[in-house]
């Protein structure tokens, strides 16, 4: 409970940090904050142009299919990569001022969340332009978002703390994320596969999340609620464990960073 009390006390720090993350990143560039939305769209454009050429894509509305995958994925990877270095990059602050250290990873996921929520509007615009409708299935969206938020936060609690002690973590993470991108049904559907490889998707939390996003935006299905509930339970357990590890390692941040 102490956690929430401290967090509440330092809510203004969390808020200004999120603001700094969102607005500070592209400040000075001509398009400014718009870049955080243009970037994933450009990435979508690359895949949408390239993939139908190199492999046969039978998915209907492939562009929208891609957008529903890439935008949540962008939230995930930017949070993971920024989150992993969130302590080391703020070495100056850590060494000089006391504040609850968990603010740093939390504000990374939260600013990612704000970006993602705005991006959801972009998804909806594309859905409408693509001739699809917006359906009531969107009521499941908050649940999916909550699961992803908690799951990501758990990972970066532990990664950011490890990265203080062993600097290689950020490079290893970059590699794993790269692999994970292809192990997650973002460019393709899971239906294309059969056999033991399906276990890869079953064990990959991101696969469940991306599929759930697609269910509500694109397929208009009720997402697999049993899977999501299990994932929610696992994420909550994970975030508690990772937070405890973070708190243990936190004590020597100022000396090691």
């Amino acid at each position, binding site marked *: 409970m102490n956690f929430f009390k401290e967090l509440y006390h330092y809510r203004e*720090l969390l808020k200004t940090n999120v603001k700094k993350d969102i607005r500070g990143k592209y400040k000075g560039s001509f398009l400014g904050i718009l870049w955080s939305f243009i970037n994933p769209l450009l990435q979508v454009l690359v895949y949408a142009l390239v993939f139908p050429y190199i492999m046969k894509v039978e998915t209907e509305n492939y562009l929208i299919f891609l957008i529903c995958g890439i935008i949540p994925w962008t939230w995930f990877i930017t949070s993971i990569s920024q989150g992993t270095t969130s302590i080391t990059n703020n070495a100056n602050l850590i060494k000089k001022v006391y504040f609850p250290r968990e603010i740093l990873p939390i504000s990374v996921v939260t600013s990612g969340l704000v970006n993602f929520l705005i991006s959801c509007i972009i998804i909806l615009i594309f859905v409408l332009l693509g001739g699809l409708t917006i359906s009531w299935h969107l009521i499941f969206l908050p649940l999916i978002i909550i699961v992803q938020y908690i799951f990501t936060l758990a990972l970066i609690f532990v990664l950011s703390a490890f990265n203080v002690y062993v*600097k290689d973590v950020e490079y290893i993470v970059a590699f794993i994320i790269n692999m994970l991108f292809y192990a997650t049904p973002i460019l393709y559907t899971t239906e294309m596969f059969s056999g033991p490889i399906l276990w890869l998707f079953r064990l990959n939390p991101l696969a469940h999340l991306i599929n759930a996003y697609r269910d509500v935006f694109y397929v208009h299905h009720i997402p697999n609620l049993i899977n999501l509930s299990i994932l929610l339970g696992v994420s909550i357990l994970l975030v508690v464990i990772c937070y405890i590890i973070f708190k243990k390692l936190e004590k020597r941040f100022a000396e090691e960073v």
Partner: protein
Amino acid sequence: MLKDNIAIKITDVTKTFKLYSDKPNTLKERLVRGYKNKTDYRLILNDINLEIKKGETVALIGVNGSGKSTLLKLMTKIIYPNKGKVETNGKLTSLLELGAGFHPDFTGRENIYFNASIFGLTKKEIDKRVDAIIEFSELGDLIDSPVRTYSSGQYMRLAFSVAINVDAEILLIDEILAVGDQHFQEKCFNKLEELASSEMTIVIVSHSLESLKKLCKRAIWIHEGKIAMDGDCSKVVEEYLKVCG
């Protein structure tokens, strides 16, 4: 629990820092050297016992590397002792660095919010102080320009103004008395004197002994990780100068 009139209590505190010949920070270095890499520890603070009462203004003096700043960092919970206990009573603010969290692309006004929020202030509390802070900094219209356009003196003035206007019950200050031009330095000093005579508990690390003599009644001289002398400020300073001057 601390007694009501005690602001800071330090019991049997020992702090060591790891010393590496070359800090093995990458995985390869850890694997290659493994446990062969023998780490040496350097004793920074050795069994310190200290009590600071509420409302006191205390100076910490000593030569470079004697452990003054480490003691201050222990009080703020930036680092933790290897042994012993550090207890504080009341809202604590530490000014170990000016302008923590400043972002060069944002305006002075926005940075006031960033900086003050690091000290744990809420939006409402900052709103109340923002005018006083701007007035104290004497930056005028510049306050709405990005901080990167400031001169280093103006930057420090803004930072100091935020720091000094953050109400705290315990204020820890590390060598930041010399800020800006002559006029502003005097203004800062007067503000500190005002705070020192108030209810606030202040601990200052500094090498400007003359200012300390004016500000503090009590001084603690730390030498090689131990308290060499603790008592009346001018007497301690005198003794310190005899040995280390």
